[in-house]
């Protein structure tokens, strides 16, 4: 059995430091909420649909409260108050706001106790629905078990959700266990979630609740046909992170790309906004039984992977502790790593083995999401396919859990129908061919690989010490992760962060907290 000799004291120290770093962030931001969170609460309360000119009603409600200077109370209280006062459902209230028929700030206060109770009541339906969807998944997994690991995960990105459904089913029938629909470029910076079925996207398909539903239904059908539950993935990131968490939860998505820092580093989204949103969205994911995928693979696309081990690990430690704080179980925390080692260097395979196994061993109960080579790929699809073959090998040897199947055409286009077929076929071959190999191998004590892993772990500790000393905000400001520098006060979506008022209530958070931490 391949196993690295790791000093457990260093590991413990890394955990302590990251627990401390992330707790400090949480404490510092505990008084904040965001417009995205409030829109999510509105959705929990049943607000849905768009105005005739296409503005989603959750945005209408929240924008209205922002305009009226009332957002600091949270959307739940004002919606509940209006429901009581007008004897309407939240959806009816929202429609009235859209038509300019009411002003929530002007409605007579129905008494704090009554409003609080109503606020809890209007959100409870969605909480219950999510619990039911989770139970549904569990039942399906019993009925249609997935037995082989790593799960083979492929991407659909046609831009057209109907094509995604065709191609997702096809990929599943070819052997894929997990289907991710990639989002159109630019969606993460939209401060609203598009509505309805969409057929036009660039490099991906818009994430909408209707698209989620359509894909999940298609895959449910295919799952039954194959006798194997096919998981569905989307992106819980960007300016609408918590809203998408809600949509994924009620449409029974199974995984979500959901990173604590990705938005900051790669989309220049405001730090506070991101940290606050990620926590709430992760609570929803946790409750929905969704597995999150963190995005450390992205670091390796902007800096050389050979030297980036410590920053990847440090980020994983922090993502892990942020996740635990949001109530996610280890089994739900799909920490990311990627085979982005430069293929032109000597012993690249040994270095990558060391890193992949280190990640695997440090988080033994987390379903590590292992990502394929991308940056070092060129238009030579044959050579690219060979690189993926070594990635497939390392994945099987080190017992990874979620295997994002590399595409031979990575450098050219989002996958064609045959690209997925060929790549899944290659990954499935390796899963079969190298099945027991890892169990039959051991590393030479203190050899290249052991030493490499130890040195990365040591440097991770140093990095975490540095971050702990400075605090995470300052560390990001100084460009510790992925070589990207961001200001705490900069970035997109900052205007959507607000300080919660004295009467602020988020009944969803309250309910989830009770369920998750009981």
């Amino acid at each position: 059995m391949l196993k690295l000799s790791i000093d457990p004291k260093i590991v413990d120290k890394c955990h302590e430091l990251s627990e401390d770093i992330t707790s400090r962030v949480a404490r510092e931001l505990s008084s904040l909420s965001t417009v995205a969170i409030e829109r999510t609460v509105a959705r929990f309360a049943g607000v849905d649909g768009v105005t005739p000119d296409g503005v989603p009603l959750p945005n209408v409600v929240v924008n209205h409260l922002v305009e009226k200077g009332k957002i600091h109370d949270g959307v739940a209280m004002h919606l509940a108050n209006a429901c009581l006062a007008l004897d309407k459902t939240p959806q009816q209230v929202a429609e009235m706001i859209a038509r300019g028929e009411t002003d929530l700030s002007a409605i007579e206060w129905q008494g704090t106790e009554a409003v609080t109770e109503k606020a809890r009541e209007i959100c409870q339906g969605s909480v219950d629905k999510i619990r039911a969807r989770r139970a549904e998944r569990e039942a399906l997994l019993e009925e249609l078990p997935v037995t082989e690991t790593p799960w083979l995960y492929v991407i659909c990105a046609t831009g057209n959700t109907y094509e995604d459904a065709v191609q997702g089913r096809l990929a599943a029938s070819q052997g894929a266990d997990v289907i991710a629909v990639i989002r159109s470029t630019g969606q993460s910076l939209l401060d609203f979630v598009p509505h309805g079925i969409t057929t036009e996207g660039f490099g991906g398909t818009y994430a909408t609740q209707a698209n989620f539903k359509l894909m999940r239904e298609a895959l449910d059908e295919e799952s039954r046909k194959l006798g194997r539950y096919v998981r569905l993935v989307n992106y819980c990131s960007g300016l609408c992170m918590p809203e998408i968490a809600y949509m994924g939860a009620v449409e029974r998505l199974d995984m979500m790309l959901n990173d604590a820092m990705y938005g900051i580093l790669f989309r220049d989204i405001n730090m506070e906004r991101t940290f606050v949103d990620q926590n709430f969205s992760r609570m929803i994911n946790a409750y929905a039984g969704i597995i999150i995928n963190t995005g450390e693979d992205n670091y390796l696309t902007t800096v050389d992977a050979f030297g980036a081990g410590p920053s990847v690990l440090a980020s994983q430690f922090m993502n892990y502790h942020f996740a635990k704080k949001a109530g996610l179980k280890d089994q739900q925390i799909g920490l990311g790593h990627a085979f982005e080692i430069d293929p032109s260097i000597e012993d690249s395979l040994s270095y990558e083995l060391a890193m992949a196994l280190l990640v695997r061993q440090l988080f033994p109960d987390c379903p590590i999401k292992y990502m394929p080579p991308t940056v070092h790929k060129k238009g030579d699809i044959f050579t690219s396919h060979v690189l993926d073959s070594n990635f497939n090998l390392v994945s099987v040897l080190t017992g990874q859990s979620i295997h994002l199947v590399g595409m031979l055409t990575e450098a050219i286009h989002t996958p064609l129908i045959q690209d997925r077929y060929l790549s899944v076929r290659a990954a499935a071959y390796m899963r079969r061919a190298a099945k027991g190999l890892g169990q039959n191998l051991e590393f030479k004590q203190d050899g290249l690989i052991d030493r490499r892993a130890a040195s990365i772990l040591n440097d991770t500790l140093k990095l975490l010490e540095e971050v702990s000393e400075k605090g995470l905000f300052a560390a990001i400001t100084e460009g510790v992760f992925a070589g990207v520098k961001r200001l705490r006060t900069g970035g997109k979506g900052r205007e959507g962060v607000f300080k919660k008022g004295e009467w602020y209530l988020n009944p969803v958070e309250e309910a989830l907290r009770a369920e998750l931490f009981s």
Partner: protein
Amino acid sequence: METVMGNGNGQATSGGRAANAPHSDLVLPYGDQRNDGVVQVSFTLPVAAGPLAEEAARQTMKLMGLEDPQVAEATAIGEEFTFFVGYGKLTRAVELSKLRVAAPMWEELDQAAVNQLVQDTLGRPMVVVGAATGSDAHTVGLDAILNYKGFAGNRGLEAYSAFKVVNMGSQVPNEELVAKARELGADAILVSQVVTERNVHLANLTNLVELLEAEGLRDQVVLVVGGPRITHALAIELGYDAGFGPSTRPQDVASYLAQEVSRRMLN
């Protein structure tokens, strides 16, 4: 197009009857959207790498009818050679309903049915002589069809009481094959041709037909050829009765032989 051509060794359709499709659609390659026409190509041009070579590659793709030709990779693989990988969009569609697919005519029969049919027709086993002819030394494919063990779990002709099989093995000169067929009074001759570089198989296959005709044996035997690059259409063109391509199962051949011999007896 209405000429008989194409592979169609039959096993993929029900019993291999000539598959004139009911579709009438125009079919284009499918990349990630129906009818986007996306095709991948690779080739080498004897031109030194550089902008000129890349432009030549793009033009080569245009000559192939590919619109929006993209050179995804251009690599020097020698001072005077550049290797290209490209993608482009074909806009000319194939009309399915217009295609004529040639395949040997037979219904799929199981072992018992084949044995029965031959017994009913001939009252004795069919004598089958097989060989990899000329300089061809590839016998695995022929053995897969003839030998008891068979292919992919499907037993070979030796396993049928309907056939008396003589497998002459590899590199058999056509003359020896014809002599053996005459000697045994063969009902069928099964030829395997695997090597096709510089079309070496064509001359060899044609020569066999000529020999058989010269000896007046051509009409006495069912003449079959198989191999990874053999199609039924090609076989017909060369004067054979049937051609079998890659992934042929012995049962396909057994079914065909039994039915062909019975058809001939009825005529």
